């Protein structure tokens, strides 16, 4: 039993390492090649955990090999468009100028039901509102609505409005009474300023649950519950 436990811990850590190595892609929507690697890795990892007679190394080696090949292929894919097309495929335009390309839809075996369901999930219930739609390589659909149906933006309502280019959202700077490394540097605010704010609010840093602040030093402090 102890062996199974230790093997599971080792493989858990290895999987975390592999997924971290493969990067953020692996956590979000998967490209076809990444999906293949993920399925393979999850399958391989279970074998040495279940069966103690299988050497752990026969699980570790293929997992590391697949993760490393995935990283190398995606790195090469960034350099070569042809390779990227080969491993990930190409996005397919299914609606252009408001017209559905039925041949393309048939080619990628994308039914009208699939299309309508994706549009509905994006809040579009009438297909005639769509100007342009692309089925991405991850299988998600990107939609560009016809101009009259597009949501108004600040730019479209007030094109001459001046805006502050450094208008970033507030950042979390203290969590559970501890300053988050890097956050203050990004905001260009010193730790001393934070201490002054905390003194002004009469709260000790260790009693802060979370504190957010933006570059203009507008802040929000939530105290720890007693």
């Amino acid at each position, binding site marked *: 039993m102890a062996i199974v436990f230790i093997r599971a811990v080792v493989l858990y850590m290895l999987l975390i390492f592999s997924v971290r*190595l493969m*990067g953020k892609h692996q956590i979000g929507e998967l490209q076809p090649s990444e999906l293949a690697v993920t399925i393979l890795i999850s399958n391989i990892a279970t074998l040495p955990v279940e069966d*103690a*007679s*299988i*050497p*752990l*190394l*026969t699980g570790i*080696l293929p997992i*590391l*090999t697949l*993760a*490393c*090949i995935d*990283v*190398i292929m995606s*790195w090469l894919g960034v350099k070569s468009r042809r390779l990227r097309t080969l491993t990930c495929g190409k996005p397919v335009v299914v609606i252009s100028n408001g017209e559905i390309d039925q041949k393309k839809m048939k080619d990628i075996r994308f039914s009208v039901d699939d299309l309508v369901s994706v549009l509905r999930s994006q809040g579009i219930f009438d297909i005639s509102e769509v100007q342009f739609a692309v089925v991405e390589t991850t299988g998600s659909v990107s939609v560009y609505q016809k101009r009259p149906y597009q949501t108004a933006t600040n730019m479209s309502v007030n094109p001459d409005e001046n805006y502050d280019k450094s208008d970033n959202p507030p950042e979390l700077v203290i969590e559970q009474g501890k300053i988050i490394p890097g956050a203050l540097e990004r905001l260009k605010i010193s730790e001393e300023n934070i201490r002054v704010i905390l003194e002004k609010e009469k709260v000790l840093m260790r009693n802060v649950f979370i504190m957010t602040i933006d570059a203009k030093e507008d802040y929000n402090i939530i105290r720890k519950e007693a």
Partner: protein
Amino acid sequence: MKRFVLSLAILVIIVCYSASGIFILKEKNNRLINLLNEILYYYNSNDYDKALSLAKSFDKDWYDYERKMSVLVHDNKIQNINMSVAKIKPYLNDKNEELNAEIESICHQIELMYQAEFPTWYNIM
């Protein structure tokens, strides 16, 4: 770029480890087979004491080999050989005629283990 270099380094380590594993396996196999042949030679020459002392030395080598191989190959393959290895000393003590067959069997299985690990087309497929 950091991830790419790390991945490349890990792949190189894996390839080197796999290649060296095969060479080490071959070398260890040769040593074991030579020892077994010597045991057989002395046994057939009726020098039982010498054969027995070689069998003890073989036991030590086998223990070391078994430990190392259990990291690389499936336990079942090693256990099969283990059964035959355990019979060597009793057969030598009893001067049993089956010793020849048992040693041949061990040699064959050790050789098979190497062949199964060598990356040939048939093994890969």
